[in-house]
């Protein structure tokens, strides 16, 4: 396995871009984009994380096998988040407590 040596200059460039994205996300937080707030914050975080993985962690230069391992990790995370959120976001068919109201006097004292 041939080792790839990244130059310190690139590291510094990456560091400063991370700083820029940090400021950007803090700035974005002071504005209201409605439902896009979460999306913007997460997209910026994902860009930052990708920079760290690709350059600081040498993901860009590592073997195909290592890349597969990294992708698998995030893929499985996506399975867990995605399928669970799919359940929660399609539950509207069930009546909620507010729709039904409390049963008149079934409260059990204790």
């Amino acid at each position, binding site marked *: 396995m041939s080792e790839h040596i990244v130059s310190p200059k690139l590291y510094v460039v990456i560091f400063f871009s991370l700083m820029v994205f940090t400021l950007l996300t803090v700035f974005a937080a002071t504005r209201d984009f409605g439902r896009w707030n979460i999306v913007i914050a997460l997209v910026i975080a994902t860009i930052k994380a990708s920079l760290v993985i690709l350059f600081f962690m040498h993901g860009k230069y590592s073997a195909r*096998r290592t890349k597969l391992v990294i992708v*698998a*990790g995030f893929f*499985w995370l996506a*399975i*867990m988040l995605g*399928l*669970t959120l*799919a*359940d*929660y*976001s*399609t*539950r*509207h*068919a*069930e009546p909620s407590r507010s729709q039904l109201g409390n049963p008149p006097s079934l409260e059990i004292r204790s």
Partner: protein
Amino acid sequence: MATTELHVPSGEKMPREHYLNATYGIRSWLLTTDHKRIAILYLISVTFFFFVGGLFASLIRIHLLTPGGYLVTPETYNKLFTMHGVAMIFFFLIPSIPAVLGNFVIPIMIGAKDLAFPKINLLSWYIYLVGGAFVLYSFATGGLDTGWTFYTPLSSIYSNSAVTPAVIGIFINGFSSILTGLNFIVTVHTMRAPGMTWMRLPLFVWAHYATSIIFVLGTPVIAITLLLAGLERMFHLGFFNPAYGGDPILFQHLFWFYSHPAVYIMILPAMGVISEIIPTFARKPIFGYDFIAASSIGIAVIGFIVWAHHMFLTGQSTYSAVAFSFLTFLVAVPSAVKVFNWTSTLYKGSIAFDTPMLYGLGFIGLFTIGGLTGLFLACLGLDIHLHDTYFVVAHFHYIMVGGAIMGYLGGIHYWWPKITGRLYPEFLARIAAIVLFIGFNLTFFPQFILGYLGMPRRYHDYPPEYQVLNVMSTAGASILALGYLLPMIYLTWSMRYGKVAGKNPWPATGLEWTTDSPPLTENFAETPVVDWEVYDFEHRPELGLRGAIARKPLPTHGDD
């Protein structure tokens, strides 16, 4: 039954030096980094937990003889089934085949001197012990009555039993699984001998590779889930607590994200064992090698996207339930592929009925029943009726006991000559295998009917109309218990008095059978080179079988 005596030459002698006599003393065992010795340490510890869990199981079955349930109080009964589940699942079934048999044979099978990280392997065992100690502490100080599923808020708020140490114990034990899985994955990738290409890997190794994927990707989730439930209990934080607006169903999502794949952690290695046993005792290459290997990976991957089928009646969304039911039916496909291929392997074989083969054939039957009844539970309309009844209990015991434990015992018998260098008494061993098969079916088949009749699980007391079936089940359990004691006795006996086995008593084709029994600490005197295809008897004249022809030299470079 045909007498096809093993053709072990009677003059076999134990090798002069092997891993068991390389060093002596308690330190040489407790500080060993030899995967074979660590496997023995695991063997002893999982056997201990098996008997702890088995003791609880016997008490449960005796208690259920009569509807009133007079043997123990409800609290005690609840503790018994919880502790039975925790001991058996987390401390026996999950580590059994991977940590004992996998640890012992995988490095030898791929021609390595050891696993990639021998010290981490030893560390896994110690982590397992520490986790086990916490759980035993919980059992001893008040027990545990939450069910092995630890559903919140019962476990996090309402239970009065020793939940905290149990949760800590299982959390710790999780890291043992993770490290074992990590070790296997890396070992299979980087430690294969020259010529041991991916397509020459024994199916046992493929099965463990798939299992390790689950170890690595699933176990951290159960760790964090139980940690959150523990924090909720210890520090009044709230994650699933309805009083704070939390959702107890979220716990179930997280729990089953691991615990459903965990079922495959138990069954995949057993399938791997069966895939070794059947070609050996049918003396022919396994039918559809690549399909069996791919189906292992397929089961591991699809197994991760079916978990919410445990939650069809919790108030899960209808859409989600339908999707998960469909995905669950998909898992049936790779499982069926395996069964069909094993069956086809028998066709035109040269079949012997040695003990491992009896377990192998028993496994096919029991796993078929277990797998097919899984379809009933995957089926949404039936699950409304069957969920949380004895049908479920019967189904998963067919998979975990009929499948995983049969596979484990089959594997123990199959590699016993390799592990100890000696043969066990064949006649007794066959009797034990048959007793187990009969006892098992008598114990668990009636439970399918009980479940369809509506008897809920985890009941210390039941309406009298269910008694007949419960009595049958208890009767079967007593036969089953006998079946488990027998191998304990004769295997222990054989370690000293058994006939010397020689390198390859069956004979079988794997790399592990080319080295001494028991092997050297380094496994091989010199690094082996693999120049034959997997499960190939035809081109292995060195096995001494009739009609074998010399093989053409094959390219030995790996394909990785």
